[in-house]
């Protein structure tokens, strides 16, 4: 009886070890994909490296995976890439002086538009 129990515990712990291993690889794979979705494939037409099967995209995915495995943070990985390929490689352009217009122009246009609509509505009410 004790023997059987021991065997059961042994087999159970084996499962536990593999399960834990799976959790770890799942984490790395998911993280690699998550970061890859924010990285532009430089030789493709507006694709992320997660979508692309081009050589450079594959290489960058491997690099990101290795960096995650060696404990780099997301920020460090993004910085590593933008230090080499520029902000162009980031699909989310960072807020900088030269991208202020990019970020705020839609809101400015919206406000201007609202202003115009209000003016026109006011004018038509007079008639």
């Amino acid at each position, binding site marked *: 009886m004790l023997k059987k129990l021991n065997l059961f515990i042994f087999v159970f712990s084996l499962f536990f070890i593999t399960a834990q291993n799976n959790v770890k690889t799942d984490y790395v794979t998911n993280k690699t994909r998550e970061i890859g979705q924010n990285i532009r494939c*430089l*030789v493709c037409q507006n694709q992320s490296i997660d979508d692309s099967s081009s*050589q*450079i995209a594959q*290489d*960058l995915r*491997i*690099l990101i995976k290795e960096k995650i495995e060696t404990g780099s943070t997301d920020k460090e990985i993004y910085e590593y890439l*933008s*230090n*080499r*390929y*520029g902000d*162009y*490689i980031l699909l989310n352009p960072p807020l900088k002086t030269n991208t202020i217009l990019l970020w705020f122009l839609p809101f400015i246009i919206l406000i201007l538009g609202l202003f115009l609509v209000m*003016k026109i509505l006011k004018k038509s009410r007079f008639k």
Partner: protein
Amino acid sequence: MKSKIIIFNILPLTLFALILAVSALVLYEVKKNPSNQNLINSQLIGKKIPTIKIEKIDFFQQKVKDQTLNIDKYKNNFFAVNFFASWCAPCRVEAPLIEELSKLIPVVGIAYKDKVKNTKVFLEDYGNPYDQIGLDDFGKIAIDWGVYGVPETFIVNTDGKIIYRHAGPLLYNVFKSEVLPLIRKK
């Protein structure tokens, strides 16, 4: 009331004119200086070169020697780094100009994702302008240099800093108008 009407008539027109002017300016810049068409400017300009720990190709043994490239020997001198591959067609196009470049400054060749025996055939066919050749079989060195395709050529100055990068084949007009003035200045 009249002034308001004028504003409403003029505002869209001025906006449109402004957009046109900006587009024209951008287009003009691109036409004037074709190298601006390189959307991805190198981030490494003005920075120290990344370390090149890379296995050297030794053609006498026809395999990679257990030895890394010696970059220290260019200390206080200009040199160029050229990423190429035997499978890359534009590399064949630029071969004569890399030859020209190598007459002025030493050129380090980095064979990108290549097989040593293919590199050897390529250099036999097109000439070997390289002072040293390293093998970047997994493309890791290239990523460290911000390379996104072959060929790419970098020029390093006496301080070991990258002063110029050209992505794509080095053509005569680029060589004459951009590369030569840099080397003459040294």
